[in-house]
């Protein structure tokens, strides 16, 4: 040991963890009455974490790659970019959850604190530079999420969702751990840098290692809910309280996809020829199944579950490409997906009639008559999710397909665009219900200031992305370039 461990590299994660514990204490002493206060404090903590995260980038203009804490964690521009997205996703979820939880009688201080802990876990996942650190982050995130899924503890569906998520999630974690142990057994190291060095020198290409990588891929595919490891998604999405579903559909997905990118491209980058075909198949199955299975759905949360499965498929095209263009595509996709999904779920949270939440797609009938602005916002999100220009969702798809064509995967690209046409059908169906069908009666007002603000901000970002796409695209481009030097 020559130097003191570089703690600064995990400063945002440490800050967030400490803040979560402190806020838990505050919450316990202040009691349930202080839930709103604690939630706002949690939002504040997330904003502060964001500031700590971005401060070095602002002051120096770049995020050079540095490894710290005995090589367990890494700080680089990929981490900064995606951790920013994760924190934004958590902030948006907390904002739209506040009033919902109060109305549903599940406003407890554990909710925001658990979101904070899960966020800390996700940030650790993203920053992991070692299989052990990866597993620690993943489990910290997952355990918090299991509890969140079952947060409406008096609701059978919610508890069922939590239990299902826990059982299947534990199996996936087990697979991942098993894969990691096989990799360690055959490679002799858990460090990403060590593994990368081993594979780039052409060594270690043994069946045992490949088996280990397959198991790790399966565990990660489960976490991003890619087909064929997606079965938990519709049930958990439907059963969990809606703000939790909103949270699930953005932040953990972004974290897990980033982890997927990092693990596949950095330690196992030398074995790309071996894992590329796996990703190819997973990506295609996710796109196709996400599109076809969503057609028959009647519940909008289930529909969004299948939609998210499909979108993971599109994002994985970028990973299948395995190039700088691919990484850029994934990052752009995740950033735009965050706002589309957060906005959509904020609209879903407004679906409340006679004091009760409604979740049927039919309940949106005639929304353009009863709530024109809400209908317009949801239509914008739906057309964007379908990838129709000039909305942002088009650019998300454009960049992953660009990567696929560039990387010589024309068949995946063709099948991808075909499934996006199938997918357009069910997004259009929601527009049809809102605009073509007769009105069914208004939703309860008021929707709440935070929810309205989230919808407005997301709709503006999605609509006007086309005017000034430069910052996000160039940012993603710069990140991708650091992963593929030379």
């Amino acid at each position: 040991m020559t130097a003191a461990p570089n703690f600064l590299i995990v400063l945002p994660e440490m800050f967030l963890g400490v803040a979560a514990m402190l806020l838990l204490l505050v919450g316990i002493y202040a009691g349930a009455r202080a839930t709103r206060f604690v939630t706002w404090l949690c939002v504040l903590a997330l904003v502060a974490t964001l500031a700590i995260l971005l401060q070095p980038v602002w002051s120096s203009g770049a995020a050079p790659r540095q490894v710290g804490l005995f090589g367990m964690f890494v700080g680089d521009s990929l981490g900064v970019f995606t951790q920013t997205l994760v924190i934004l996703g958590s902030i948006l979820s907390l904002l739209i959850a506040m009033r919902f939880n109060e109305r549903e009688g599940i406003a407890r201080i554990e909710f925001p604190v658990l979101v904070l802990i899960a966020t800390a876990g996700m940030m650790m996942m993203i920053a992991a530079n070692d299989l052990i650190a990866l597993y620690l982050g993943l489990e910290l995130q997952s355990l918090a999420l299991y509890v969140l899924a079952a947060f409406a503890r008096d609701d059978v569906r919610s508890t069922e969702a939590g239990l299902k998520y826990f059982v299947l999630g534990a199996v996936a974690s087990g697979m991942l751990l098993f894969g990691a142990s096989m990799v360690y057994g055959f490679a002799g190291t858990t460090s990403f840098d060590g593994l990368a060095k081993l594979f780039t020198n052409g060594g270690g290409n043994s069946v045992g290692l490949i088996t280990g990588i397959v198991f790790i891929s399966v565990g990660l595919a489960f976490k991003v809910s890619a087909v064929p490891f997606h079965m938990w998604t519709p049930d958990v999405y439907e059963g969990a309280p809606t703000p939790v579903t909103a949270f699930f559909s953005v932040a953990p997905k972004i974290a897990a996809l980033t982890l997927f990118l990092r693990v596949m491209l950095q330690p196992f980058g030398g074995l790309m020829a071996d894992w590329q075909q796996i990703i190819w198949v997973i990506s295609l199955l996710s796109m196709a199944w996400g599109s076809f299975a969503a057609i028959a759905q009647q519940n909008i949360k289930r529909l969004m579950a299948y939609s998210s499965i499909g979108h993971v498929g599109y994002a994985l095209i970028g990973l299948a490409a395995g190039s700088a263009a691919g990484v850029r595509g994934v990052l752009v996709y995740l950033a735009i997906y965050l706002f589309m999904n957060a906005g959509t779920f904020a609209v879903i949270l407004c679906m409340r009639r006679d004091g009760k939440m409604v979740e049927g797609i039919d309940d949106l009938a005639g929304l353009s008559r009863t709530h024109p602005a809400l209908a317009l916002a949801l239509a914008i999100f739906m057309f964007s999710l379908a990838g129709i220009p000039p909305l942002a969702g088009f650019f998300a798809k454009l960049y992953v397909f660009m990567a696929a064509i560039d990387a010589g995967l024309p068949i995946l690209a063709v099948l991808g665009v075909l499934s996006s046409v199938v997918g357009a059908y069910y997004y259009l169906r929601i527009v049809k219900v809102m605009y073509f069908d007769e009105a069914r009666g208004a939703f309860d007002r008021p929707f709440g200031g935070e929810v309205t603000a989230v919808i407005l901000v997301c709709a503006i970002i999605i609509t006007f992305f086309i005017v000034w796409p430069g910052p996000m695209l160039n940012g993603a481009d710069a990140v991708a370039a650091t992963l593929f030097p030379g």
Partner: protein
Amino acid sequence: MTTMAHWPLLSLTTFLPLAGVAAILVLRGDEQAVARNARWIALWTSLIVFAVSLAVWANFDPTRSDFQLVEQADWLPDFNIGYHMGVDGISLFFVLLSTFLTPICVIASWTAIQRRVKEYMIAFLALETMMVGIFCALDFILFYVFFEGVLVPMFLIIGVWGGPRRVYSAFKFFLYTLLGSVLSLLAILAIYFITGTADIPEALAFNFPTSLQPWLWLAFFASFAVKVPMWPFHTWLPDAHVEAPTAGSVILAGVLLKLGGYGFIRFSLPMFPAASAFFTPFVFTLSVVAIIYTSLVALAQQDMKKLIAYSSVAHMGFVTIGIFTVTPEGLQGAMIQMLSHGVVSAALFLCVGVVYDRLHTREIARYGGLAENMPKYACAFMVFMLASVGLPGTSGFVGEFLAMIGAFQVNTWVAFLGMIGVILGAAYMLWLYRRIIFEKITHADVRAMVDLSPREILIFAPMIALVLWMGIYPASFLKPMQPSIANLIERVQVSQRAAATTLAQR
């Protein structure tokens, strides 16, 4: 050149309608007042846009073959994707056609649309932006944004204000055309990687490897053939036309069907000359089948709109034949045929709209004898009907005649079979006219129908003038497009010759 040449005229034409959208969006008050104001704002916006587009024409130098009034700005400089606008002789008149038809649509919907007027006018103005943008865009990504963006307002127009089967038709229209366009998106991305830029003029000058050309050509064909529509990809059209409100049909027939032909001329021919030559017999076959088959189908229709929809497919068959002859006559004929069809079929749909507004049925058998109580209507209808048939002196004649001259030079059989289609076209149009306008009045409610109102005369008058202008003195329209078309033909022939010599050297 006037000082106006320095203005960003094309951007103004494209995005001015969005200013109207913004103005309508902020309207508040009771429903009647909002509807009235929305109509007036839409009308004034579209008229101003038309005036601006006339300024584009005035500033256009008809002796040049390159892109004019070019505007360039950074959009995604790191990716070589930019905001690049410009028109040449091929796109100029499509811009004018779009801006000409939009105010007519607004006036035609003045009383017919009473429900959700605000949203309706917003949809039409947004549609205008997209349409003009398609023809002005000189960057592939920009082009595609407009090209696919057009689907959203049209989907809503058919679905919200359409007839009984509007939902089915709206979905069919949207998904059918989306399927075609996503494939062309992949071709655009491939072109982007081959040329290293999304700039259209650069891609037009690029010589694509002969081995790749057929694939790229087919991907574009998937998109444009659906838009034209060519047989057998036309089935969305009758449904969409029948269910769309009158003004929706006008835009659909007037402008959206031209996107296919425009795409073939703009992209397929100059970028993939070898593949175009290879696929010419294929296109000719489909076009001839379209002309004869859809003409026969049109003869059997009971619904006026459906009949005109099928006639559109037949007329667009002449366009695709003319384009792929790659002769000056054929291409000019195709261009004039598209412009003529844009006015004539739009006017025919408006004619159907006039009687539909009065009797609320499109069934041909419900009418008859309108000449007695609606003489002005009978007169206007006759002009458009004869133009559709291709009577000399009307715009339809110039287009079909030139296209057939082109076809005759390349393949006499195609010309012969095409001419059979002209005869069939005369048959179904004259028969339609007889059944609606002549014969005895058998229905009491038909006798009670009143003749054209001043508003309706205001719609038809400029269209009649345009049809006769294009028929009697087509040179005003042919002259500006001739240099661009000559340039295009030279480009195709040079690269085909180059391909032939490389083959010979092997």
